[in-house]
């Protein structure tokens, strides 16, 4: 059964969908920034897994999803790093409005 699933790439798809669902739950239900960030990464991994699954057919592997997944991971990494940095700054100094022209 498992082999059959794996053969057609459905195992990846199902696992990916489960990860997306889990991550989605975390992203919606948690308020803490770091948790939401982790949830974001879980969803991202799920999507990449799903993506990889689509490129798997009978024996051969489509190179396009592979190239794109790698790019996607780099993008997700950059986003995560940036979000983490922003979260740290926010936690350290608050909503620091040093800009006098903000005018709110």
């Amino acid at each position: 059964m498992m082999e059959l699933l794996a053969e057609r790439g459905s195992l990846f798809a199902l696992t990916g969908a489960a990860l997306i669902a889990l991550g989605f739950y975390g992203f919606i239900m948690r308020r803490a920034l770091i948790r939401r960030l982790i949830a974001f990464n879980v969803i991202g991994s799920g999507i990449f897994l799903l993506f990889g699954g689509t490129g798997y057919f009978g024996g051969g592997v489509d190179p396009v999803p592979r190239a794109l997944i790698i790019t996607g991971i780099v993008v997700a990494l950059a986003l995560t790093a940036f979000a983490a940095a922003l979260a740290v700054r926010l936690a350290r100094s608050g909503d620091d409005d040093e800009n006098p022209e903000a005018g709110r």
Partner: protein
Amino acid sequence: MNLLFALVALPLLFMLASLVAGRHGPRLIWLAAPLMTGLAVWLAMAVHTAPEGGALGGWPVPLGIMLEADGLAAALMLASAITAAITGLFALGSYGTTRAETTRSYTFWPLFYGLWAAVNAVLVSRDLFNLYVAIELLSICAVALAAFGSRKAAMDYLMIALAGSLAYLLGVVLIFAAVGTLDLSLIAERAPEARTSVLIGAALISAGLIAKTALFPLHGWLPPAHGAAPPAVSALLSALVVKASFVILLRVWFEALPGLTQPAIITGFGVLGAAAILYGSALALRQEGLKALIAYSTVAQLGYLFLVFPLAGGGEAITPWAAGAWGAMGFHASAHMLAKAGLFLAAGLMIHASGNGRMDGLTGLARAMPVTTFAFALCAVSLMGLPPSGGFMAKYLMLISSLASGQWPYALVIIAGGLMAAAYLFRPLARMFAGTETPAITPLPHNWLPLAPLALAIAAMALGLLSAAPYELMVSGLPEAGEAGLEEVEP
């Protein structure tokens, strides 16, 4: 053709250069502004005769990166180049006067060029995944710039952007799984075979992009983020960033999936757009902070763009002199870019001068800052959709399309939106003219700074007065669905 790649690559080079050049980095704008504007002008003239495009590095389509500029892309690229160049020069004059600001200018310029590159990349990409990468670069730069104002607003913005990205990416994956390609025109060929999965993917993509474009009801993040940022940043965010995600939405529905749409989808976009116009304007009317008012006005103005979904092709059949709502949308996007950036820059100068960002801080400023006030007023005229501005041509063409196609409720919304815009924009203007005293103001860092919003305002006016050439550019090479209407294209 290689110059098209230069439009994407050069800002990236400038980004690196500004990192390396350190203290001298800001001066790069003196080179970047004329160079990029010149390139955009070249592109507009070239595209006027035939679409420009090609594959990067000669790789074939599935793996290589295909860039192509149609009329709309060229027109928006020119408008965004003008906006970015002038905003950049403005930023050069307003950063670097104090030590804290000098530090900040180190981070401003790389983000500025990154944002510019991302906008250009979005405009010329013809591939869902390239669009993803471009919009992510755009989001990072935009959020980082928004953090200059309020980190909390930036964090909210980031969370929305992240959620939007994930929805978009998931949609891309679903479409790829269904049709095995990411190229927009190939999707258009293959989509009818896997209608349901493609539509689900498209729905996810749309949801993600709507969040990033801040269409009602997902607009909540925009006013705090745009309202709190420094003027140059607000101008870039409101003028360029939200337009980019809208353009992707346009590409997805009009180029990749025409004929797959259903009345419910088209009407849905139209109704959300109309609601954005009315709701955004109503909230703008109630703002006491000048920049918050302008930011809510962005929420309202973005709504007009979405009317292209129900109105596309609307006037075509009956009045051959108005090629549907496509040109109107292009005009609105360009005019809003120029006018909104000008409005934020002018507001920034006024807030700096009066030291008060609230409405009552504006009293009498028309006497103390006549040029800035005049620029503000001209930009406001364009946003209200009054002649002779680009905003007027946009609204006129939209009205013609909606009436010619019998969709008169949209016409009522457009007219009501114009009146509401007049109401909320004349509030600050009346303040500026009120009183008999000339208020004392903090001197501006440079006397030429008001010329920046004035130049943008004049550009917005010129777009209306000399509308023939930009109009022809915008409708050259327009997708079939833009001419005939979304539902009219056979799947």
